[in-house]
């Protein structure tokens, strides 16, 4: 059995040397001023985050259901290269900026834009070709065969346009797409893939010209005599519990679960063997994350995908079931409504600060403790580690849900993430072997398969939580990818096989040294069910060893970051899903003054009020006394008239 290839010193040797730009030259005063500024900025951000519940709210998209995936992509599309390069320099990672869009696009755009020679005669060449050669050919290839320079790093691979097979269509399986269908994919991207949204990057003319140019790659469009027949979805039936329940029944009957799994997490028995029309491994969609659906996450979108299928993928069309009388259109709508119901009402928003509430009761130390139900959940997106070789472009885990609680003595984190395989998983061995064949060879790293037999090497699932060694004063934090030689990070690690947790220090990606378990107090418990891991990690806030272990404190923003590995996807060592720094904030115990102040205020108010009332009454009675005496002294006083 192979251990997780994280802590191997010989691998780490290549990072031992200093990183360019690591020792930034700043004189003492400059450094101090910068630190002070950072401290202020940090305080403002955390205060804002705690006050508003969100460190950074994303623009709320119009009709999120249909459009949010493209918003997410576009958020990254504005500056993918900056974000990617920024992560290289220590400490200046933008606060909690999620790397998902940035890195996904760094891949798609940097490779597309940089590896493709600039068009020579932009002015007079056809706009579609110029735009394509500049923005698309890097992945899709100059001839549209899906074989651009960057293609081999992607899974799923870029579309081969010569076959005119398009996943997202309004037309039956096997029919050509409409121009609007192609334009929609260009505009919105394919959220489950490396294909970004181009609506805000390219002009309307450019995007429309692209549609025309893409069609020239395949003879099918020229051969077509009539425009394709379009499926009109009609209106969905009203959303009812009965309808959703019937959708669930049909989810069973038409065996969606075979690929997508009983809970919809893409973990069905047929999932490990799926391949697309180009023979590449492909995963069934995780139906609980509709913001990653290719073609949109609304009920209408899902219904259309059921009707049309996703051509070029194993996802078939179910239209013939209606034609054959096996089920009605309404029943297929119910399947769509059921599938929609598996995802949250709104896509998760990424927040900078994870708040660990303080509990008076016992700290829950198992993942399914009912106490967790009341604790706020935070979504942390993860992306492939594509900064340090060997890089990893097709991670399984795309996000972790985090909950945190403390009781002044210990901190508990509950982590929940989706992974269709409980690694090492024999059912997924063939998947791992195929991944090894199409993704591994370029960059080396720990082997995924036996070099002689080609059989999958058993690798565990794993997750790591990263903290600095000490709570920083300002925004200064160790290098986000497991620190470096000068400034190590402190890790909590869990793995599925052999099951257990450990603490470690890391001095760079792949340079992990476990801390002696004897001084440790980190404990954990994990549950795997229907393609989901649920894990609780907990540790006392303070430990006897203060040199190598972070001492948690309440009321201070504590940087933290997450890593995940899916062993059945060949992930180990630097082939990981990563995130950037976020913050953990442990609520402070409620100070006694909180109870005293209102009482004092009430007493003060009452006291002052009494004084005013008494004085007013006194004045009133004096006035009355005076009036009485005047009346008595003169019955014809002019003011009384």
């Amino acid at each position, binding site marked *: 059995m192979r251990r997780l290839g994280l802590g191997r010193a010989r691998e780490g040797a290549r990072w031992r040397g200093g990183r360019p730009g690591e020792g930034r030259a700043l004189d003492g005063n400059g450094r101090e001023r910068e630190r002070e500024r950072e401290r202020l900025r940090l305080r403002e951000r955390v205060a804002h985050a705690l006050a508003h519940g969100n460190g950074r709210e994303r623009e709320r998209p119009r009709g999120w259901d249909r459009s949010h995936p493209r918003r997410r992509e576009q958020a990254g599309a504005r500056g993918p290269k900056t974000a990617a390069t920024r992560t290289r320099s220590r400490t200046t990672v933008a606060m909690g900026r999620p790397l998902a869009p940035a890195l996904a696009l760094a891949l798609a755009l940097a490779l597309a834009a940089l590896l493709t020679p600039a068009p020579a005669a932009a002015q007079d060449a056809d706009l579609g070709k110029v735009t394509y050669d500049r923005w698309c050919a890097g992945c899709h290839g100059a001839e549209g065969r899906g074989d651009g320079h960057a293609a081999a790093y992607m899974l799923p691979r870029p579309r081969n346009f010569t076959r005119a097979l398009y996943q997202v269509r309004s037309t039956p399986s096997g029919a050509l797409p409409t121009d609007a269908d192609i334009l929609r994919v260009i505009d919105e991207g394919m959220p489950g893939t490396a294909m970004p949204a181009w609506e805000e990057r390219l002009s309307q003319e450019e995007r429309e010209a692209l549609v025309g140019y893409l069609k020239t790659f395949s003879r099918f469009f020229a051969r077509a005599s009539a425009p394709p027949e379009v499926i009109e979805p009609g209106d969905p039936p009203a959303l009812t519990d009965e309808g959703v329940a019937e959708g669930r029944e049909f989810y069973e009957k038409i065996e969606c679960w075979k690929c997508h799994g009983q809970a919809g997490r893409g973990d069905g028995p047929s999932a490990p063997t799926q391949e697309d029309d180009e023979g590449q491994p492909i995963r069934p969609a995780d139906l609980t994350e509709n913001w990653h659906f290719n073609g949109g996450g609304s009920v209408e979108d899902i219904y259309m995908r059921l009707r049309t299928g996703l051509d070029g993928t194993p996802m*078939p069309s179910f239209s013939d079931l209606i034609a054959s009388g096996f089920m009605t259109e309404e029943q297929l709508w119910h399947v769509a409504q059921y599938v929609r119901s598996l995802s949250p009402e709104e896509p998760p928003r990424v927040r900078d600060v994870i708040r660990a509430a303080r509990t008076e009761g016992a700290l829950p130390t198992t993942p399914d403790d009912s106490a967790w139900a009341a604790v706020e959940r935070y979504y942390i997106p993860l992306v492939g580690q594509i900064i340090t070789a060997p890089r990893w472009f097709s991670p399984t885990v795309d996000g972790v849900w985090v909950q945190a609680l403390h009781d002044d003595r210990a901190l508990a984190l509950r982590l929940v993430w989706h992974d269709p395989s409980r690694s090492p998983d024999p059912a997924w061995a063939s998947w791992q072997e195929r991944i090894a064949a199409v993704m591994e060879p370029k960059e080396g790293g720990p082997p995924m398969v036996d070099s002689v037999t080609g059989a999958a090497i058993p690798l565990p699932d794993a997750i790591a939580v990263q903290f600095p060694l000490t709570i920083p004063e300002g925004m200064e934090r160790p290098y986000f990818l497991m620190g470096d030689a000068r400034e190590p990070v402190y890790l909590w690690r869990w793995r599925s096989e052999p099951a257990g947790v450990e603490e470690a220090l890391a001095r760079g990606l792949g340079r992990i040294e476990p801390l002696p378990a004897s001084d440790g107090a980190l404990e954990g418990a994990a549950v795997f069910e229907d393609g989901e891991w649920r894990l609780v990690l907990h540790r006392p806030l303070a430990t006897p060893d203060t040199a190598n272990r972070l001492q948690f404190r309440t009321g201070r923003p504590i940087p933290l970051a997450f890593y995940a590995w899916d062993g059945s996807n060949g992930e180990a060592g630097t082939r990981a899903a990563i995130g950037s720094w976020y913050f953990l904030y442990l609520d402070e115990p409620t100070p006694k003054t909180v109870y005293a102040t209102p009482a004092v205020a009430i007493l003060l108010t009452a006291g002052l009020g009494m004084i005013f009332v008494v004085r007013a009454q006194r004045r009133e009675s004096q006035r009355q006394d005076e009036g009485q005496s005047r009346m008595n002294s003169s019955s014809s006083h002019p003011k009384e008239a």
Partner: protein
Amino acid sequence: MSKTSGSRIALGTIVAIFMAACGAGGPADDAQTSEAAAQSDAAAAPVVDPATAATITGRIALEGTPPAREPIDMSEEPTCAAKHPSGATTQDVIVGEGGGLQNVFVYIKEGLGDRAFPAPSEPVVLNQDGCLYHPHILGIQPGQTLTIRNSDGLLHNISVAPTENRGFNVSQPVNMETERSFDVPEVMIPVECDVHGWMHAYIGVVDHPYYAVTAADGSFTIPNLPPGDYVIEAWHEKYGVQTMNVTVGASETKQIQFTYDAGAVAATVPLGAPLIVRGHGSAAHAAHAATTLE
């Protein structure tokens, strides 16, 4: 892709009337038996003079030790496993008595000139039974109906991935039939089920009835041919393609043989893309010379 049933019935009626007028018998029941199909279709087509019609017949042999047929693990589908009491095995290389190679698609690749052969009205049936395709290799003409049948009553999806034609991918979770057709000739079109990775079939689309699939003993017959010079191609999913030039005179029955080498598995078996036919030798020579394409 799919035709409406109305137009299909109309077309069927027209063809039936036409055939009745010509005095031809009804189309053969079993679309696999290309011999019968070819006869009836050729009879329907006025381009062949029955008085001079020739026949090419022959056998495909596999020399050497054939690979063992691997067992298929159907334990995940008990319904299907129960249909194979002695266990299901892979279908890619099936060798009969005397080394005859089954499931080779043999067809006239060139030489029919401008003759047009209307698509037969009878559908070709691709049946899913016991989580295997029946037949494993089949031929069809452009425009002819392909009826895809699920006899297993459990989820199959039919993922058809041609190069020249439009592919499609439809779901059949219950006992049902789906009808499709192909527009243009293409040899061969792969068919797969994504739920059951072991299920494979190949469809040869040719715009005439002169094709056959070798029987268990490796034999085939292509009857009713106009006399002339032909290029005949044999396609096997594992051993690739061989071509041969054959000349048949009036009313002649020509005997030919293709021989594959069991040790020479083709690196790439051509699918879909038009094949480049290189130099043709004599019938006997070509059998060995034009072996697999690399």
